[in-house]
């Protein structure tokens, strides 16, 4: 390394990159994945979000993914400290984050290294690298920069050094503020995006601050654009057709929160936990404007109990959490099941077990969601597969909870929580709202738990209803809500509570197969893997393979018609982001292999030999990976 410093290639930095001699015609692309990364606080996230919004306005399909360091303030220039955004831009509709990155803008070489080591960059990918480190006062930094730079060049990456800091310094005193807009300007040039839309983004973001901030950001934006036009020898265009309908661009957590707004619920009780918190942050900002409130309880048990109290009193309530908090809520969830109190519980899954990987995606909580809480505690479990479904699933969840007096668990994950994908702007419908609290007198002789023998359903009495007085209890109870000491009653009521799931199941429609209804291989998925699975299926179908996929939104109960679908394929496998034993591990065989959650559920319910592939890397499974796995499965 010392040797390398002695070579003093620092001179190179002083050379201006060659001006592009002629204006190159943009290369047309079908899609591209670009990421912008920096130390946290340098604004790469904002830059990426703006880029995504601009591309969406141009009519491009986009999928943005936040790159979040595990620590709040990782040390500057650290390998694990990359903060930023990854944007997949396409001509058509984009359903997931895609495979490896095609181009990256890095504010220092260390955060870049982190991405290289995580194998997130495509071999030979273009790297636009801030070059200020080459002439840094600290020789160690200079050495590290040069070493990394040279290694990347050697490894075949197309590294272009950019004097972002130097250029910005000619215009502003502190380039740490605003360099991201310079980068945005460059990217607008590279992707042939209208600069005016970027100006709009700046006005939207800083409009409330003083005009000088807006002006200086626009100046940097334009300078970045100009520099790129003068110095880069490539640019792209990703043709797009502007949508004729208004599109909403939000991440999964905001979508959930908007769903809460639209559902008519009045209270959200929560305790902060990554990656669920941003949903509550957003709700805290806006909920009161429509007559709601967010209660930050002293812990998740209290949050769940508070929600149950409010629901019991007639206002179906939501509690939002992630894995560890979800575990804490279990006893209270059982109480809601036993008392037949409607309740919506959102679990934005993260890596587990224990504290696990707070900022990373995983689908590890399906079994806990279905079987959690001791005894037989039947509850509804739903999993939105897209950002759009995050919105509508909350409205549906509230409805089911109140119709069936059940707990409805909505499982999303860190990937959905932090990704953005445009979807048609929802049109508010009054029927989404909760009905007013029933305060009418209870008919004489009516009982608080008058279970219907076929459906298990009973009308609920809400405090305030004259004549409905009874004590709800988590103890086994009879139709009068009297504590039941009789084992017979206990068994009957277990039956009624279970029947409600069947009653709901009868109202569900069979899910639609993606691809042909018959073929060689069917992949079953749930939750955030939807887009990647369908993309892999599409690729293989284009190659003539007889493959399809099935994505389940209702995990408990499962919709009718699934068995018939599974039977239409020679092979069936699930693709999930939760642990399954690797069949090629030495001591793993059919007698001890632990399958992925959905695979276990399907195998036990349908008695079909269903395989699984799982990856638990804290990142969404890539379509390319799924494609490879499917090809292997087809060959086996």
């Amino acid at each position, binding site marked *: 390394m010392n040797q390398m410093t002695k070579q003093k290639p620092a001179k190179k930095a002083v050379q201006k990159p060659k001006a592009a001699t002629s204006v190159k015609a943009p290369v047309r692309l079908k899609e591209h994945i670009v990421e912008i990364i920096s130390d946290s606080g340098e604004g790469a996230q904002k830059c990426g979000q703006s880029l995504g919004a601009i591309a969406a306005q141009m009519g491009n399909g986009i999928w943005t993914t936040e790159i979040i360091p595990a620590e709040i303030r990782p040390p500057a220039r650290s390998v694990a400290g990359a903060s930023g955004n990854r944007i997949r831009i396409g001509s058509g509709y984009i359903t997931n984050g895609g495979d490896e990155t095609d181009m990256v803008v890095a504010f220092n070489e260390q955060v870049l290294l982190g991405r290289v080591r995580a194998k997130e960059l495509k071999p030979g990918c273009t790297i636009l690298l801030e070059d200020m480190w080459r002439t840094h006062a600290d020789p160690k930094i200079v050495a590290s920069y040069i070493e990394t730079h040279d290694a990347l060049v050697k490894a075949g990456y197309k590294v272009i050094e950019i004097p972002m800091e130097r250029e910005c310094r000619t215009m502003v005193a502190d380039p740490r503020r605003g360099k991201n807009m310079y980068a945005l300007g460059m990217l607008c040039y590279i992707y042939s995006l209208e600069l005016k839309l970027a100006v709009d983004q700046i006005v939207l973001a800083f409009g409330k601050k003083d005009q000088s901030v807006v002006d200086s950001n626009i100046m940097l934006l334009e300078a970045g654009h100009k520099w790129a036009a003068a110095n880069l020898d490539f640019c792209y265009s990703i043709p797009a057709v502007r949508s004729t309908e208004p599109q*909403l661009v939000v991440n999964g957590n905001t979508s959930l929160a908007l769903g809460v707004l639209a559902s008519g619920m009045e209270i959200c009780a929560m305790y902060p936990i990554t990656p669920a918190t941003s949903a509550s942050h957003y709700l805290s900002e806006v909920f009161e404007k429509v007559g709601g409130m967010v209660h930050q309880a002293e812990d998740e048990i209290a949050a769940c109990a508070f929600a149950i109290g409010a629901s019991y009193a007639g206002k179906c309530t939501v509690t939002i959490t992630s894995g560890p908090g979800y575990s804490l809520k279990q006893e209270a969830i059982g109480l809601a099941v036993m008392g037949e109190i409607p309740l919506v519980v959102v679990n934005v899954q993260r890596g587990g077990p224990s504290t696990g990987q707070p900022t990373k995606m995983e689908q590890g909580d399906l079994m806990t969601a279905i079987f959690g809480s001791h005894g037989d505690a039947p509850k509804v479990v739903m999993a939105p597969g897209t950002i759009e479904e995050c919105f509508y699933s909350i409205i549906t969840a509230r409805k089911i909870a109140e119709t069936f007096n059940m707990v409805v668990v909505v499982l999303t994950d860190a990937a959905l929580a932090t990704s953005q994908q445009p979807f048609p702007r929802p049109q508010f419908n009054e029927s989404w709202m909760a009905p007013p609290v029933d305060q009418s007198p209870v008919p004489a002789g009516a009982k608080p738990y008058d279970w219907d023998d076929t459906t298990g359903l009973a009308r609920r009495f809400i405090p305030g209803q004259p004549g409905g007085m009874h004590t709800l209890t988590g103890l086994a109870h009879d139709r009068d809500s009297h504590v039941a000491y009789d084992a017979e009653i206990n068994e009957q009521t277990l039956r009624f509570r279970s029947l409600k799931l069947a009653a709901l199941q009868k109202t569900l429609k069979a899910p639609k197969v993606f691809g042909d209804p018959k073929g060689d291989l069917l992949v079953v998925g749930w939750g955030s893997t939807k887009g990647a699975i369908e993309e892999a299926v599409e690729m293989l179908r284009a190659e003539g393979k007889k493959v399809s996929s099935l994505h389940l939104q209702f995990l408990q109960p499962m919709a009718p018609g699934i068995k018939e679908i599974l039977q239409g394929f020679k092979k069936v496998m699930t693709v999930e982001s939760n642990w399954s034993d690797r069949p090629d591990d030495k001591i793993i065989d059919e007698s001890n292999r632990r399958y992925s959650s959905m695979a276990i559920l399907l195998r036990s319910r349908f008695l079909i030999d269903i395989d699984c592939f799982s990856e638990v890397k804290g990142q969404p499974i890539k379509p390319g990976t799924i494609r490879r796995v499917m090809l292997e499965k087809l060959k086996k």
Partner: protein
Amino acid sequence: MNMMSDMNSATACLLQMTDEHFQLEDYQSGVPRWCTGCGDNAILAAVQRLCRDEALRPEKTVFVSGIGCSSRFPHYMKTYGFHGIHGRALPVAEGVKMARPDLTVFVNTGDGDCTSIGAAHWIHAIRYNMNLTVFLHDNQIYGLTKKQASPTSPIGTKSNTTPRGSYLEALNPLTVTLGVQNVSFVAQAADWIPEVLFDIVKAAYHHRGLSFVRIIQRCPEWLPKALDPWMHDPNKVLLLNHANGLQASAGLSRVYKNQIEHDPLNIDRAREIASDTETIPVGILYNNPAVPCYEDLRQSDKLRTADLTRAGLNAELDKYTVWPQGAEQKVA
């Protein structure tokens, strides 16, 4: 009284409100299954009397409890009741009150329920200061699970988990409660002095905010002699009097001569009195009606109507909408 027969129209309802009378039976439900001599019976009697005297509408009244002998309380009230899970009565009651401030909400919790498994909720409930009336049935033992030491068991208490006597000094629920920010009402009663018990229950009900009433409760089943020293020697009971608190009646004063004047607004003095474990102070230790209630601070002043929701939702959607070219007008 028969609530159902004349409840058929809203007018009947309104008329009724002006002139309502209830009998004790209107609040009584089932036969309590507590042991004979259990202090919970006295608490039940006092509370039923309160409901009758205050003509609390049974359908607008909710008793929330946790788990324990004492948490069976709601089953014996002919109101709405919520017999939940161990330790979580307070957060459930908070949720009820936040959703429905129109309901009168009481909480019954045992010493294990409140000061052990539910201790975190207890501290925070005091701080939220919602308008709840909380009765801590403190028998200084786990009754339902058959005699284990509780945090409030006096040091040396022999129990099934401490057969050679409990090891730790008892936790003092009064000093703990009086130490929490936003505390607004703390009182102590003893089940064997029904007159004061009733007066305290009544004062607690009338306090707006969280009223915390520790009731020293006998458990003849597991600790039959534990409270004898205080029951047999009235001088070991200290009655707290004040013009802004309770005033001992002449009859009571004949038996309980150990009395002091105590201003319920004086929190320092309240903490001193509460720290005395030799005598049992009975009365209102602290009462400050000026502490704001969480539900008042947090209740939205807007009604969650469809129109408001549509407007609010659309305003939010506007922030994140990408409009088709030339159509940047708002949708309805």
